């Protein structure tokens, strides 16, 4: 059975201040994929995400996005709201979703009891779940997350990835996740995409066990540390 291609990037190039950030990157994302994207700082991961999201335009190449229903959870999405009195339900209501859908999204993300709490009073992990609940309300087919578990403790991280697995397997949500936590990525996702200006690797997450691949991506010696040793 052929899978539905949601994202088809061909030979994408992007430069900023005359520095090449993405160099002929091609990538296909199929329906149901759960992809972890890794690469060094300045390697072009966030730029690639923003091209997929339509927030940036590639200098050359072709970006074909089949699904218009993409949701984005930005890096530190909740951090910057520390001063503002926005409640969880207001974050969800701003999508214009119906009350029944809001109740369902809160239940899926295990936030029903936090509905009336202020976003600024929640932990970082809970804040990220609020943004995922908002993504669900936009009827997204693809969920894109940029460094979602930075500053999140171990237990909350586990709950977070449980939620992502549930959304991927039971709610048929395709997920692209950018992270620096290579060990977590290796453990939690099905596929990995390694980017360092060029596409270095796209395939099974098990390939992260290969030190040569990590060295090729990051340019220095990297070793995978089993997650439970943290």
């Amino acid at each position, binding site marked *: 059975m052929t899978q539905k291609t949601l994202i088809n990037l061909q030979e994408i190039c992007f430069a900023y201040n005359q520095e090449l950030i993405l160099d002929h990157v091609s990538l296909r994302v199929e329906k149901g994929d759960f992809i972890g994207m890794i690469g060094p700082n300045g390697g072009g991961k966030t730029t690639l995400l923003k091209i997929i*999201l*339509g*927030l940036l335009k590639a200098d050359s190449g072709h970006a074909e996005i089949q699904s*218009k229903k*993409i*949701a*984005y*959870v*930005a890096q530190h*999405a909740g951090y*910057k*709201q520390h*001063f*503002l*009195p*926005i*409640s969880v*339900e*207001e*974050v969800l*209501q*701003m*999508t*214009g979703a119906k009350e029944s859908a809001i109740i369902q999204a809160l239940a899926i993300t295990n936030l029903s009891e936090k509905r*009336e709490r*202020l976003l600024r009073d929640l932990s970082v992990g809970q804040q990220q779940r609020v*943004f995922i609940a*908002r993504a669900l309300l*936009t009827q997204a087919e693809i969920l894109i997350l940029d460094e979602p578990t930075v500053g999140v403790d171990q237990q909350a991280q586990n709950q977070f990835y449980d939620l992502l697995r549930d959304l991927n397997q039971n709610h048929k949500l395709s997920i692209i996740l950018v992270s620096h936590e290579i060990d977590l990525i290796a453990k939690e996702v099905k596929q990995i995409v390694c980017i360092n200006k060029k596409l270095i690797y796209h395939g099974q997450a098990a390939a992260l066990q290969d030190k040569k691949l990590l060295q090729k991506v990051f340019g220095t010696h990297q070793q995978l540390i089993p997650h439970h040793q943290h």
Partner: protein
Amino acid sequence: MTNAMIAGTIIACLAPLIGNFVLLKRIALISDTLAHLALIGVAIGLITHTQPFLVTILVTSIAAILIEKMRSQKKISEDTILALFLPGGLAIALILVSLSGGLNANLFDYLFGSITTISNAEIYQIAILAMIVIGLIAIFYKQLLFSSFDEEGAKVAGLPTKWLNYLLAVLIAVTVSLSMRIVGVLLVGALMVIPSVSAMRIAQSFKASLFWSVIFALIAVFGGLMAAFYFNLPAGSTIVLMSLVIFALVTARQN
């Protein structure tokens, strides 16, 4: 005094509503920048003997759209853009004022506010425009909230963020222009921002913040007008000082 109370009530309901969105979008200094640019409109009005109030709305709206356009291009940071526009606007205004024959009482009314000299015609103008601004906020409330809170998320969700940003910019410009007769160009930002900051400290939702900011602004306007009347002080200053007292009380209560 009746006109002052009516005008003060209208502006106390309007300015903090916009102020909440300004804080949400983290562009608190835009109100001060537009207020300084408003002086260009006042000066043109004085030179051409036209209604400064309407010219000011036009000038600040154009400036707000230009600021937003530069901001969206992301080639210069937001605070730098405002730092370019604020002295630039003031410089143009001062040249125009100089060409018009220098400072006069009319200009001082706009610089420092002159709520007690507001005419019936101005009350009608302020009321109609305030209703339009509040109506637009009500109609586009969810979209403006989403776009101000998380612009990238709103854009990805399919909202026309570019047009929503222009809409908010023009609403801020109109509010600044309406408020300047009350507290003056130099203090207009304070009336928009201070009650909103006070409200955000105690509110348990954005809607509650909107509510409390209007309450605080009303207390500040009425208290400020009373103080101005009994102690023969400039009303704009007493209104802003009253806002600061409320902020201090709210902060003290929290601590």
